């Protein structure tokens, strides 16, 4: 690990009420060591912001310092592809909590700042502003970054990703009547943005490498249903379409060239091909990491003083007997609770079924569970009606996951069936006339 090379007793820039003391200033180096180091949360997204709030709820009285790379207090990312893009939400709506929450609860924030290195032996962080900061406990909530294409033309202007509010503003600037957006990747981000683009009068073409949209995260029935709906809304879907390059004119993206030679003219390109966990900081200081920072069910890393939460982690999934990375708000909140409970010596929170949601047009998708190695998919309700659910079962009929479209009751029932690892005969799930309540509760 890289040594920081800062003199002992270096006074970090935080603690604005303290006069700036040099290493040899009044009080000497020992003075600084007496300062109570706090819990430092590296990352001010949904996970980091929630961890700060739960620590206070669970009774942590000491200092909490929330460090965020963006200049914004923690905010909701899900609306960025939807309400925010359509300008139906304000910054106020987007904020997770108002500014006064942080002052009232004595949560210090250092925004526009990134942790650049962790000195575990000295329990001290190096920050992007050149200062260092001691910690008594560290919570890594560094999130994930949009996966890059790695193809020529990616650096052209007008080639966008969507992760932050700034990204969303840039994207909103290129959407509007008469504009054409090429979306590389038919995942949730791509599909949600396609729907928003249509609502804003722009045209959208989704370019997906796999034979279906949501290939990585949804079953065939849901993919097919969504493909039909997006096409009906005027979205062009190009499946099994591999991108070769993004072509520019005068430095700006003008078209996407496919491997098969097709050229898709456009005014801007959104790259939505997944996210990679920001685990390099953890790996660089020797924490166990690989495709996410390895954590246990208390969000502990391999260092007892360091927890990790949210998109940057790779976590156990007891219901499925494996580990995975879960990129979702519910997971960020669950792990924030796990870390805060562990630090405050409280019993661990009740384990939750992973779940996700998405809004596209008038469709509310709610998904509970993860369909690892499904043996059977059972459709309940009529997809043509716009309201249905797909239950994914293991070979022993254990309910692994449910995908519900405008079917909140089926989602709730499915969530319970998954959590109880209930085995259900497929015909009982298929028959929409049979209420699921008796099966679930």
């Amino acid at each position: 690990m890289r040594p920081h090379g800062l003199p002992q007793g270096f006074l970090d820039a935080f603690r604005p009420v303290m006069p700036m003391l040099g290493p040899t200033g009044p009080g000497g180096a020992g003075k600084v060591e007496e300062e109570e180091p706090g819990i430092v949360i590296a990352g001010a997204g949904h996970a980091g912001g929630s961890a700060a709030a739960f620590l206070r709820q669970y009774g942590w009285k000491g200092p909490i310092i929330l460090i965020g790379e963006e200049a914004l207090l923690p905010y909701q990312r899900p609306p960025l592809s939807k309400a925010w893009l359509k300008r139906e939400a304000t910054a106020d709506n987007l904020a997770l909590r108002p500014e006064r929450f942080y002052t009232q609860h004595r949560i210090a924030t250092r925004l526009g700042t990134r942790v650049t290195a962790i000195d575990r032996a000295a329990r001290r962080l190096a920050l992007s502003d050149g200062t260092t900061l001691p910690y008594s406990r560290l919570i890594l909530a560094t999130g994930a970054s949009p996966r890059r294409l790695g193809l020529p033309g990616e650096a052209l202007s007008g080639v966008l990703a969507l992760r932050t509010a700034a990204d969303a503003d840039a994207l909103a600037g290129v959407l509007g009547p008469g504009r054409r957006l090429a979306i590389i990747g038919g995942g949730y981000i791509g599909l949600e943005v396609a729907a928003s683009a249509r609502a804003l009068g722009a045209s959208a073409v989704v370019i997906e490498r796999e034979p279906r949209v949501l290939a990585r995260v949804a079953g065939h029935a849901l993919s097919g249903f969504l493909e039909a709906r997006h096409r009906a809304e005027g979205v062009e879907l190009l499946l099994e379409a591999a991108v070769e390059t993004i072509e520019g004119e005068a430095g700006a993206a003008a078209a996407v060239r496919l491997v098969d030679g097709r050229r898709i003219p456009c005014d801007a390109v959104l790259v939505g091909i997944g996210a990679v966990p920001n685990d390099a900081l953890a790996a660089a200081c020797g924490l166990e990491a690989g495709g996410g920072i390895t954590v246990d069910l208390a969000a502990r890393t391999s260092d007892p003083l360091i927890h990790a939460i949210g998109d940057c982690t790779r976590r156990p999934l007891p219901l499925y007997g494996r580990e995975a990375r879960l990129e979702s708000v519910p997971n960020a909140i669950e792990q924030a609770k796990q870390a805060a409970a562990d630090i405050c010596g409280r019993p661990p929170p009740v384990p939750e079924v992973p779940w996700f949601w998405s809004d596209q047009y008038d469709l509310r998708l709610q998904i509970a569970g993860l369909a690892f190695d499904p043996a059977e998919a059972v459709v309940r309700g009529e997809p043509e009606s716009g309201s249905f659910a797909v239950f994914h079962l293991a070979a022993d009929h254990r309910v692994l996951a449910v995908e519900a479209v405008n079917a909140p009751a089926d989602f709730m029932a499915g969530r319970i069936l998954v959590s109880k690892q209930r085995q259900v005969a497929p015909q009982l799930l298929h028959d929409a006339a049979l209420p699921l309540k008796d099966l679930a509760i």
Partner: protein
Amino acid sequence: MPQVTYIEHNGTEHRIELEAGKSVMQGAIDNGIPGIDADCGGECACATCHVYVDEAWLAKCGTAGEQEASMLSFAATAEPNSRLSCQIAMSPELDGLVVRMPEAQH
């Protein structure tokens, strides 16, 4: 400004001011009141902001919409006075509202 009292499962009371138009869920989140999780941020998608509305205020809070009622019908601890607090918008008529939280939201 209208006031809301939140009562935790353990009996701890929190009285806050909440501007009209904001949801009862948001009031809890903005003030760090324990017992309301609000995973989905107020989209009526998760049923983790479940509260019991004090009987005296039940009628003034209106009735649950179809989606909300569906979600609530599967909440293990639902009662006739259960609501999702993201779906209750504060108004001058609700000044003094009292809600109680279940033991857990999951």
